[in-house]
C-alpha cells in the first residue's frame, strides 16, 4: 500500500525532493513522498557502497520504477555508514513508508553546518506547490 501524502516537520528538505534527518554527527537520508509518487512503485534501488563519500547536491544512488529512473541527490555531504538493505531487497518499502522503513542511507556528516542551507517543511511545501 502506498503511503498518503505527508512531509514531517522534523526533517530538512532538498529541492530535488530528498530529505535528511540529522542526528548529531550523523544523518539519515531518503526521498520524499512527492518523489516516490512521481516515480511510481519502485522496483530497484542501486545503493552506494558503505564507506563511499557523498557530496551535497551530487547524485549518490539511483531508484527505478518500471518506466523511470532517477538519480538520488545528496542533501548533505558525508561518508556512507550504512545502506538500508530492506530497501535493496524490497524497494517498494520506499513507497509504503518513505520517511520510516524506506530510508536509503545513514551517513557521517562532513559539515554539520550544511544542514542550515536546506529547506524546512514550510519552504519545501511551498516549493512543491510551484511544481
Amino acid at each position, binding site marked *: 500500500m502506498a503511503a498518503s501524502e505527508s512531509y514531517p516537520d522534523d526533517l530538512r528538505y532538498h529541492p530535488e525532493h530528498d530529505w535528511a534527518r540529522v542526528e548529531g554527527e550523523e544523518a539519515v537520508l531518503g526521498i520524499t513522498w512527492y518523489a516516490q509518487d512521481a516515480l511510481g*512503485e519502485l*522496483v*530497484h534501488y542501486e545503493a552506494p557502497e558503505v564507506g563511499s563519500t557523498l557530496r551535497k547536491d551530487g547524485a549518490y544512488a539511483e531508484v*527505478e*520504477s*518500471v*518506466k523511470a529512473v532517477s538519480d538520488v541527490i545528496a542533501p548533505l555531504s558525508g561518508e556512507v555508514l550504512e545502506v538500508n538493505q530492506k530497501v535493496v531487497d524490497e*524497494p517498494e518499502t520506499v513507497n509504503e513508508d518513505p520517511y520510516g522503513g524506506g530510508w536509503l542511507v545513514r551517513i557521517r556528516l562532513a559539515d554539520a553546518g550544511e544542514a542550515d542551507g536546506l529547506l524546512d517543511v514550510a519552504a519545501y511545501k511551498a516549493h512543491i506547490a510551484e511544481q
Partner: protein
Amino acid sequence: MDLIYEKSRPGRRAGRVPTYDLPVPEIPPEFARANPPRLPEVPENEVVRHFTALADRNFGIDTGFYPLGSCTMKHNPRVNERAAALPGFRDLHPLQEDEGAQGALALMWELEQILIEVAGLPAVTLQPAAGSQGELTGLMLMRAAFADRGEPGRNVIVTPDTAHGTNPASVTMTGFELAKVATTDRGNLDLDDLRAKVDDRTAGLMLTNPSTLGLFDEGIEEVAQIFHDRGALLYYDGANLNAVVGRSRPGDMGFDIVHYNLHKTFSQPHGGGGPGGGPVAVTQELEPFLPSPTVVRDGDAFRLEHDRPRSIGRVRGFAGPFGVFVRSYAFMRAYGPALKDMSETAVLNANYLLAQLKDAYELPYDRLCMHEFVLSARALKREHGITALDVAKRLMDHGIHPPTIYFPLVVQEALMIEPTETETKERLDEFVAAMRSIAEEAATDPETLKQAPLTRPVRRLDEVKAAKQPVVRYAFDDAGSPDRIGAR
C-alpha cells in the same frame, strides 16, 4: 498458452539431419558437451501449430492500422520479400570474390546513388545495421574529422530536449559530452539558447527534422549557420525522413551527416523489432573517414574497397544487412521519382487526422504538422483520471495498434501519431471515430477505459512484478537453483 518447452516430450523430433556413412571423429573430452541442451522435442506439426498460435497472438501492419509515431509503420510490399529470397541474393556468401558478386555490388551501388539524391550529400556507407548504429558511425566520423583538422578538443554534442533517447545514448557511447538545448513554444530550436551553448568545444548538433513533435524546424538555416560559423558539424537523425523525400533534403538544410532508417522510410519490414538498416551519407570532406569497405565502381565493374587508410574502421560484419538493401532498393525502384508522392501523402494523412482530432484532445503545438503529430491526454487525466496509457489500451479494443505514448518527454501524457502514406481514408476515419469515442467514454464510463483492453489474448500485465523478480528464461525443473535467474 504453453511454451514450446512445455510441449516437449523426450524422443519426439521434427527435422532430420543428413548423416553419411563416415566415421565421426571424437571431440576431445575436455571440450565435449557433458549434458545435452534442453531444446524442445516436438514433431513438426506441433511446431507449426505453436508458431501459428504465436502469430495469431500478434498484431502487425498486415493486421490493421498501426500509427506508432516515430516508427513509420507503412505497408510492406510483398514483392520486396520475393526479391530478397531470389537465390542469387539469399544464397550468396559474403566472402564471395567481388567478381562473383557483381549483381549484389551493382544493387548496393545503385541504392547508394538513390540515397545520395534523396539526402543531397555526395557519399554513402551502407554498413550500419540500424539507425542507432548510424548515429554511432556519424559521431565517430565527427571525432575523426576533428582529429584530422587538429581540433581534438571538440567534445560536446548538442541535442534538443525533444530528441530520441538514442541520441544522448550514442553521445555517451562515443565518448562525447552532452549539451541540451531547449525548444520554443512553436516547437523550433531555441536559437538564443543555442547561441549560448555553441562554442569552440562544440563538435556538433544531432537533430531530427521534422522533430519528434512532427514539426519542421523553421529556423533550420540559422541553426546550421550557428554551428558552421563555429566550425562544428550537423548530424541529421533520419527517423523522420518520410516527411520530406523529394520536398527538402538534409544536405540542402546544411547537415553534414545523415542517417536513413531503411526500415522506416524505405519499407524494410520491422520484423517484431528488427532487422533494420542505417546507411549514413556525408559531405565530401567526411568521405575519407567512412567505414571500410565501401562499394566502388570501375567502369562496368564493381568492387569492395578495403584500402581506406583514414577510415574510422568497420562498424559491423561484411558490407551491411544486404537483404535489407534488396528490399529497400525494390521499394525505391517501384516508386521512382514519385517517392515525392509518398512523403506528400504521409503529410496529408497526418494533417487530416490532426484536423479531425484537435478538438477532442489537447494539441500542445497548434501548427500544421508534417508526417506525424503529438496530442496530449492531459485534459482527460485532469478531468476524468484517464491517461494516455488508458487511451492506448482502449484503442486495442477498436482493432487499432496504439500510437507511441509518453514521448516526446516535453509533452505530458503524449500520444504521438504517425499514419504513414499507405492508409485509405476509411482507415483514417475509423481511427478518428475510435479516438473520439474514447474521449467521450472518458467522461461517461472511465471505469471501462481503465479495464481496457478487454478483447486481447491477455489483459493488462504486471510490469512491476516482471521487473522486480525477473524471469527471463524458462525454468525447466531446476527451480530452487539459487544462482539461476528464472528459477521460480
